């Protein structure tokens, strides 16, 4: 964390619990996952995992006691020209460190990813939302359903979604 400005400079470092620094976290993740891309993002360490290794990787960072990412803060989908990315913001309640995990679907036509709802139950509903708005199918999901919209809609958060009535384009 070289950025000294802003409100985040005084973050969890003052905690009593011995937290791993971001550098140590990056080092441990790189050595454990040689083919994944690990880097320091704007604020948090980021790791990009291949979609077929996602579930095993997530299982590992939750059960590994030195990482222990037990709190899935946020799961969001982002549409890019050739793939759809799912971003997981994870925090460890014991070590207080934070990690951003990203994974890309193989294509935009039939995007499929493994669910992580068996690891963090809250993911079940975040994934429902992503399925509803971006159209990613999550395999092994217990009850995948459209959360907000009905079946007549397409996937509004995709960049090629056009709707003359409801969406203003600029």
């Amino acid at each position, binding site marked *: 964390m070289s950025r000294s400005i802003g409100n985040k400079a005084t973050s969890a470092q003052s905690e009593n619990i011995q937290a791993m620094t971001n550098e140590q976290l990056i080092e441990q993740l790189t050595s454990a996952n040689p083919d994944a891309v690990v880097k320091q993002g704007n604020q948090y360490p980021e790791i990009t995992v291949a979609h077929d290794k996602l579930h095993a990787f997530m299982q590992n960072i939750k059960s590994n006691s030195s990482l222990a990412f037990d709190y899935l803060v946020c799961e*969001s989908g982002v549409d890019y020209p050739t793939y759809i990315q799912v971003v997981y913001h994870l925090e460890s309640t014991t070590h207080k460190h934070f990690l951003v995990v990203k994974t890309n679907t193989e294509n935009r036509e039939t995007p499929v990813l493994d669910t992580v709802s068996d690891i963090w139950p809250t993911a079940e509903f975040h994934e429902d939302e992503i399925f509803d708005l971006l159209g990613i199918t999550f395999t092994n999901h217990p009850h995948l359903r459209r959360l907000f919209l009905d079946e007549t809609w397409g996937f509004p958060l995709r960049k090629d979604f056009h709707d003359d009535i409801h969406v203003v384009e600029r």
Partner: protein
Amino acid sequence: MAEIIEKIITTDEIKTDEYLVNIGPQHPSTHGVLRLLTKLEGEIVHNVEPHIGYIHSGIEKMTEALSYPQIVHLTDRMDYLSAHMNNEAVCLCVEDALQVEVPERVKYIRTIFDELQRLASHQLWWCASGMDLGALTAFFYGLRDREDILDIFEETCGARLTLNYSVPGGVMFDIHPNFQKSVKAFIKKFKKKLPEYDKLLTDNIIFQNRTKGVGILSKEDAIAYGVTGPTGRASGFSCDVRKHHPYSAYPYIKFDEKLGTDGDSFMRWKLRMLEMWESLNIIEQLIDNIPEGDYAVKMKGVIKLPEGEFYQRVETARGEFGVYIVSDGKKNPYRVKFRSPGFSNLFTINHIAKGWKIADLVAIMATFDLVIPDIDR
């Protein structure tokens, strides 16, 4: 409806004695348009499936066509009872991305507004949940005393509910000359009111019987389901963003993060009541020490964020609110995701309401403090 029932029957076996009842979308105890499809046997709840989206307004999609100062205006339409915290989250995210340091005065003003907003929100929560459980008097007490806070907001920024007071770089205008005086008068008055509320409901034996031991959420489940805010803290999950990732003026002040152990409805109630005292404590530490200076820094006419991704967390009255901005360097964001606390909190309801009576489901929902636009976005 027929299709929904058919789907449930086919996907989830329904026994002979069980039947399905829709609670909502128009029901006073859902506090908005939320539909709970409940599977009942007699009055015992066997399954609750929340159906949302009745007021889904596509705010995340709308932001993709708006500039950053405009996005701030949309955020207070989500959790309208935590309007200022939502505004602040976007402002902090933009300021952090542009590496703008706001004046100390702004930090103090924002934090005081945060806590006043939290008090206003908890006020509406306690009186409305009293009403849910059949104590109508509470509703009038709560709304009467909440007016004082809204008047303070109105005096300074002209709005009572959707404040829009925070803008990237600071606040829209300086505080009203009477601001400190009015806040101090309010604190003095409110300190006398809080014990009155406890007398009315917290110490009431009927109320205690309705809530004690009802709808227990364990600490492990709170973490696994991402339940934050007073609801998560009542289960012992230490998740206060103000404490763990302090922003604005929170690093300068001393306050306790209240933690519960039981995780039942009564503990969730008690915790918010204690949090109101803590909010008063925070305001008291800041109100006399607001530093002199500018109320905003000059920002560019068109704000463009550098390419990259930015995440900002704040503590609203309901829990952890997150803003995730993906920027491609233009004046509009590429993608914005709002992590709303109510969304994660709501979906534990099936987990904890199973096996309780239908009246207990109302008690559980009342102490969860749900705001539906916050969930639907």
